[in-house]
């Protein structure tokens, strides 16, 4: 295993990393657009509830807890699940209106 071998390996690694980096920047560029921002902003609480809460566990139904408990869970989940403030407000407003 000579020095050339190592250099070659490093070059391959560098190429792979560059490809991944360009790919990621590409995804970020495509996925960040004002139209999409508007789409996200326009999402309703019930829609977000359907998409978001199943990301880690089965989705609880609004009837599972009362409003007081839901507001405790709201803070717990917002922090644990890294929900954005907007997401969590919409979802839990919907849940509390529907139980």
């Amino acid at each position, binding site marked *: 295993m000579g020095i050339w071998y190592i250099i070659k390996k490093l070059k391959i690694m560098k190429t792979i990393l560059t490809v991944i980096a360009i790919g990621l920047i590409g*995804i*970020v560029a495509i*996925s*960040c*657009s*004002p*139209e*999409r*921002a508007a*789409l*996200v902003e326009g*999402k309703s609480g019930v829609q977000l509830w359907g*998409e*978001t809460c*199943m*990301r*880690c*566990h*089965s*989705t*609880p*139904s609004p009837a*599972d807890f009362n409003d*007081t*408990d839901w*507001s*405790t*869970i709201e*803070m*717990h989940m*917002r*922090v*644990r*699940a*890294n*929900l*954005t*403030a*907007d*997401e969590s407000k919409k979802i839990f407003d919907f849940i509390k209106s529907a139980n």
Partner: protein
Amino acid sequence: MKRIILPLIAIFFVGIVYAQQEDKPSKTQFMIRGYGSAGFQSLNDEGEKESSFNSGTFAPIILFKFSDKFMFETELEFAYENGELETALEYANVMYSLNDYMTIRAGKFLLPFGTFMERLHPSWINKLSSVPLGFGHDGIVPSSGVGVELRGAFDVYGSKFNYALYSTNGPKLNDGSMEPDEAGILHFDNYEDNNKNKSLGGRLGYLPFTDSSVELGFSFLNSKVGNSDSDYENVGAKLIAYDFTFIKKINPLGGIIDIRAQYNQSIVDDANYYEPDGLGGSEEYTFNNKSDSFYAQLSYKPTTSSSNFIKNLEFVGRYSELNTPEGAEWETNQNQTAFGINYWLSWRSAIKVNYQITDGTGGHGGGLIDKKQFTIQWAFGI
């Protein structure tokens, strides 16, 4: 000792406010939740068979909300193992929300190192009754830490990012002076720091799509791990993890497809360790202290089926792998395939029927590993 004191303080604390709540209504909110499991397992370890009912585990969780910004959470874990009741404090921390994008936490918390330990390990969330190789006991992945953390989430033109940055007491190197068999292993459960150096860790998560179906994550944890004033004082460790999540209800497939994967790597600086030679002396040795582990899991839940029975079923497959350093006393190369069928009784309760095959070399007994395990577990949240 702290293991006992912290939970007691927590319960005492909660007791006081709970008592106050009865006198006059306040904004303080309090909830006891938790989860548990019980089951049966049959193990075939290189032809040796054993089967047993296990009384399982119970983990109460106390959530305590003081105001819209300030909250305390704690989880205790009770497990009845080998005739003994084992208790552990999984986490106990206070969190304060500084603004929409930042929350600060202090105490003992689950580490956002990848997603498995922080988000998926509770038995009512984990789709199989075991954890992937590399996690849990004898694992190489940190699960919790004592320290402070800043975390939050924000969106940028329709894509979401979340972040966590923390400093904890950090992992501790087992230098082998007490347990020569474990020389070079990292231990993660440190209530007291073994050196002045705090660890620095974090995770960045990225959800490219507006429906949150995909999340990519990168985590790191850097720390000095040796005891201060020892030969190992300057030994450091670098841990990284990549995680991937895809979860989406796909109508043509009639249900929810859920794919998860996490790769973990741990690199500890080279150091010299000593192995007793059986004659009262010892022999010095070293090795390239690099470990890694990986898991990928696919599951499918036919939620749109018209049959109430089929709707509640779930099919799961998981592959995992663990490789620890060559030349270490704890050298092992293992891989594991696990399959499961779950029946969901509610959103927080499932009967899991699993079959799991583990192959490889090394581990505790040394030699070949050939284990086949069948388990039935009932997991429930309360």
